[in-house]
């Protein structure tokens, strides 16, 4: 940072923890995760287009312990970015800025993401039969 000698605004550690801080930075973090994940999606499609052996390599990687961790993380990142993204689209219309509803919708994004992730993985681990 440039040494301008100007007074600085108080840094992160002086603020009381609030859920809005978390939802804001998580939206960016999950966005980056999803951008990287989109490259893996292309890998899967390219493998499916190539031949059964290439696709088997892809599904083996996806089904490995590390692959499962990545997939669960991707699912959580996806549902969070989706829920919080919809929240932002609603806020873009000028709604939901009162402190109470802002906090409540922040928690809603987090909770919806966790619930949908658990639901999807319960479905997958049950063998794809709801």
């Amino acid at each position, binding site marked *: 940072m440039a040494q301008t000698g100007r007074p600085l605004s108080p840094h992160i550690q002086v603020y009381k923890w609030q859920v809005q801080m978390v939802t804001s930075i998580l939206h960016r973090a999950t966005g980056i995760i999803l951008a990287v994940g*989109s490259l893996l999606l292309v890998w899967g*499609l390219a493998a499916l287009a190539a031949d059964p052996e290439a696709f088997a390599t892809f599904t083996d990687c996806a089904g490995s312990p590390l692959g499962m961790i990545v997939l669960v993380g991707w699912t959580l990142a996806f549902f969070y970015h989706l829920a919080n993204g919809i929240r932002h*689209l609603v806020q873009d219309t000028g709604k939901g800025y009162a402190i109470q509803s802002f906090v409540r919708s922040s928690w809603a994004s987090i909770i919806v993401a966790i619930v949908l992730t658990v639901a999807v993985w319960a479905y997958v681990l049950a063998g794809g039969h709801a």
Partner: protein
Amino acid sequence: MSKDLRNPLARARGLGSAKEGVSHWMLQRITALALVFLTVWFVATILRLTHADYATARATLAQPWNAVLLIALIVTMFRHAVLGMQVVIEDYVHTRWLEVASLVLIKFIAVLAALAGVLAVLRIALGS
């Protein structure tokens, strides 16, 4: 005296100092709205393919509507990803050459990945 320091033409064009007005902001929202539907459709489609074999997975994605939606998803997703990554890089990378290099790099990667993805879907759909 006018309260607005911009000249009337600049005001009418509404393009501001970045010369593109609100187009970045607007495109980010429009792609976001499209992705709400496309990604939910995609996850539902993939979930129905859980534990499916190669032939079933390929035949499903080869269906015209699935192929069309998949291509729409790929293009929209990478466009949205570049818009988002661009803002993150602009905010956090303070070394100018590194910032510019990163901005160009993510665009190159996104275009190549999107083309590769679209080609893969076409190969699946057209059976080649």
